């Protein structure tokens, strides 16, 4: 009896834990499907059941109780994936040391940010909520789905998505640490050293544990376990290939440096972020098998991006590098379809190539391409519906679906979409800047010392 009760309790607890993710069922009728992997299908229906795409075809009859969305004359594409974002986070930079592999942005998820809804308004369904770029080795990042409306932070996590970690090269870590704190790294030489040193220590740590684990069962073994260290534990997981490295980088030399370091330590899963000069070492990136996540056209906001070109994504793509276009910004995030479209001006990419930059390719970079990133049977039902082709500048995102649930509906949603209203917030608060907008990376948010330093001493 006790056992039965216990198992019931266990079931309830398990249900409680998995019930956080809601799944929906929708039939999308008559749209033009941009599948990414299987071409363009005109006047085709797409059936979603319990959060999964289960059927694609003509004249699918609506099963009972399934909501029908009429997409006649509209375009249906996989939900957009942003491989570089800081949205949905209450903290971005643990800027206290050049290496902070132990921290995790997943501990700072804020489901109430209206920024998440605004991204849905741009057809985005999944984002890589990253640590900032203050440190050579920053914290681990969380891949989240934009289930806006869910109040439990855990409910936003994309369960089972591979672990990722942020690295950063160049001006940001050297300014924060060498410039701000007078410790290594102050130069790109120092950045390389910091990473090599961290990897070397992690390797020793890993080997010490391996030795201990191997010998602890042996008769007569009297040794003590090595001291547990979450930082080194995390880095050991990087060396073992359990965590994908996402490295903020700009200049060709530092990109090449990182590839060499990773090669020396056997780290194979590498995605370069921003990587404005990736096009200069595209053959090297392709040979390594490293991927690249870039801006469509941001440049000149700092010196290390002065020698950039908007043709970066096209050059990388044509050299065989799996490339995505990211936002790193709450505003840009809302029109990633337009950013992807710019690769048609800068390098004449095809529609499928351009759309892959914001769907399948970022999915590959986050290790979730088996689940999202294209319209295929069996994949998770993350879908964006547009009035007008999504690569046209006149397009308007109309409906965004996450796990089969409509999370954005332009025609039906009210103007004010806040979930949580701060009673202390003044009604008239306006964040209208009187300064001009400049494209600035948001990677240094929360590194306030560093930020002030940059403003005061630049």
């Amino acid at each position: 009896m006790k056992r039965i009760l216990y198992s019931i309790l266990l079931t309830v607890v398990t249900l409680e834990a998995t019930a956080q993710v809601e799944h929906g069922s929708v039939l999308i009728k008559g749209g033009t499907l941009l599948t990414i992997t299987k071409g363009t299908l005109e006047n085709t229906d797409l059936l979603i059941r319990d959060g999964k795409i289960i059927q694609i075809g003509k004249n699918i009859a609506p099963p009972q109780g399934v909501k029908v969305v009429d997409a006649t004359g509209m375009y249906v594409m996989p939900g957009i994936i942003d491989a570089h974002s800081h949205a949905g986070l209450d903290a971005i930079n643990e800027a206290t040391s050049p290496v902070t592999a132990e921290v995790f942005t997943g501990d700072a998820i804020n489901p109430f940010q209206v920024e998440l809804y605004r991204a849905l308004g741009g057809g985005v369904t999944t984002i890589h909520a990253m640590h900032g770029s203050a440190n050579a080795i920053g914290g681990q990042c969380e891949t989240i789905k934009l289930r806006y409306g869910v109040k439990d932070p855990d409910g936003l996590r994309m369960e089972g998505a591979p672990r990722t970690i942020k690295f950063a090269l160049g001006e940001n870590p050297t300014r924060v640490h060498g410039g701000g704190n007078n410790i290594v790294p102050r130069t790109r030489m120092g950045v390389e050293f910091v990473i090599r040193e961290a990897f070397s220590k992690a390797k020793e740590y890993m080997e010490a544990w391996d030795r201990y684990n191997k010998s602890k069962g042996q008769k007569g073994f009297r040794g003590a376990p090595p001291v547990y260290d979450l930082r080194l534990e995390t880095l050991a997981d990087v060396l073992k290939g359990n965590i994908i490295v996402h490295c903020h980088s700009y200049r060709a030399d530092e990109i090449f440096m990182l590839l060499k370091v990773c090669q020396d330590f056997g780290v194979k899963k590498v995605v370069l972020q921003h990587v404005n000069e990736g096009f200069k070492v595209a053959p090297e990136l392709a040979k390594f098998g490293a991927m690249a996540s870039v801006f469509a056209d941001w440049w000149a906001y700092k010196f290390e991006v002065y020698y950039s070109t908007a043709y970066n994504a096209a050059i990388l793509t044509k050299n065989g590098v799996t490339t995505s276009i990211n936002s790193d910004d709450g505003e840009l995030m809302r029109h990633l379809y337009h950013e992807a479209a710019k690769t048609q001006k800068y390098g004449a990419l095809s529609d499928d190539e351009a759309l892959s930059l914001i769907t399948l390719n970022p999915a590959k970079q986050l290790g979730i391409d088996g689940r999202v990133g294209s319209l295929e049977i069996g994949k998770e039902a993350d879908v964006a519906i547009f009035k007008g082709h999504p690569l046209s500048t006149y397009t308007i995102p109309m409906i965004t679906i996450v796990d089969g649930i409509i999370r954005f509906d332009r025609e039906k949603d009210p103007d004010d979409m806040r979930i949580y209203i701060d009673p202390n917030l003044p009604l008239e608060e306006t964040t209208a800047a009187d300064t001009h907008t400049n494209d600035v990376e948001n990677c240094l948010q929360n590194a306030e010392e560093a930020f002030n330093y940059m403003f005061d001493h630049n």
Partner: protein
Amino acid sequence: MHNLKINFKKAISAIGCLMFAITVSAQSPKGEYGSFALTNATIETVTKGTIQNGTVVISNGKITAVGTDVAVPQGAKVVDCRGLWIYPGMIDGGTQLGLSEVGSDVRTRDFNEVGDVIPQMKALSAVNPNSVLIPVTRISGVTTVLSLPEGDLIPGTAGLINLYGYTPEQMYAGFEGVVLTFPNTGRKGFFDKRTDDEIKKAAEKSLKRLNEVWDMAVQYYKLDSATGSKGVSYYPEMQALLPVVKGDRSLMIKVNASKDIQAALKWVAEKKVRKVIFSGVVEGWRVAGEIAKAKIPVVAGPVLGLPTRDYDRYDKAYANPGIMMKAGVKVALCTGGTENVRNLPYHAAFAAAYGMGKEEALRSVTIVPAEIFGVADKLGSIEVGKNATMLISDGDPFETKTNIKYVFIDGWKVPMVSRQTELYEEFLKREPGVSKN
């Protein structure tokens, strides 16, 4: 045999010359000037409709003929524009182009001089004609921009420039305006940690200072006119404000929050400022009727922006220009940018899609800013007598798929290269690749 050798040598030297010529033209392409006939084009005149299969003749920097029944003048270079469109060059009404090179590097930023009231600081003096950012911008069809100083209350005088020329004088497009940053009751961004009370006090103090300055400028004007300019001594701030008080020069008021816009409307009315342009105006949609009533034109943007308040609809920045336009406000657009002023057509496209409509959006980056800046006799449309400043594209210039094929600025056929296109040429198929030897 002997002859053959000579021929061989000649051939080699000819090839050498050719290669030299190619190298030279790749490294320093020059603009072309003279007479041009752009034939067989679809001409979007903006002010006089669309002309199918028409010709535009350019001579001595001006448009000398437009239409279907136009003879190609003798000696004119013919540019066959079959399948192409001709549009007036696009005008960005609010940028820092030429005044800033690398955003984070203060040594390359020349738009923010020291001092709270410094109208005598002229953007035109600091515009760098050789900025790498300029060719990047103009080959996207943005031919003319207003460059604004920025900073405290009155940070300087903005200048309208055409994006081709080797001195600011060659670039000057005929408009200057004194910039006023209207006292701001809003927060500047996430880094603005002031309390509400501090913001309020700062805005009040700033308005008090503005009133003092304006009253002084009026006094200065009275003294100046009473004495035929003889009774006033060197006073650069007041001298720079004098044409504004007289109504000869526009006051460009940078203002965004709706309350601030209302305060600015009140201030302009009280002080009877004669020529006023509002700039930024991101919350203009909240008070569009009031702006329209005051008949103050606006340069709105950036369009690709976030709503200013958490409770506002997600697309308000996109919709803002259209809402104001429909309320009767004269609306031109701006990017507010520096290195990506090239995206002006896309700001216009978003404004078009979210309510402004394509036709009005096109006007808002061509003839409307030309009118607002008082240069509509020279810019903003394809008409005889205007400056030959235009773009030739293979489609709608607001679409990303479209390529801009040629750009003319003041009659100069601009080389269609920038550092960004040069890097593309060099690195698309890099040599050597992975192996050097």
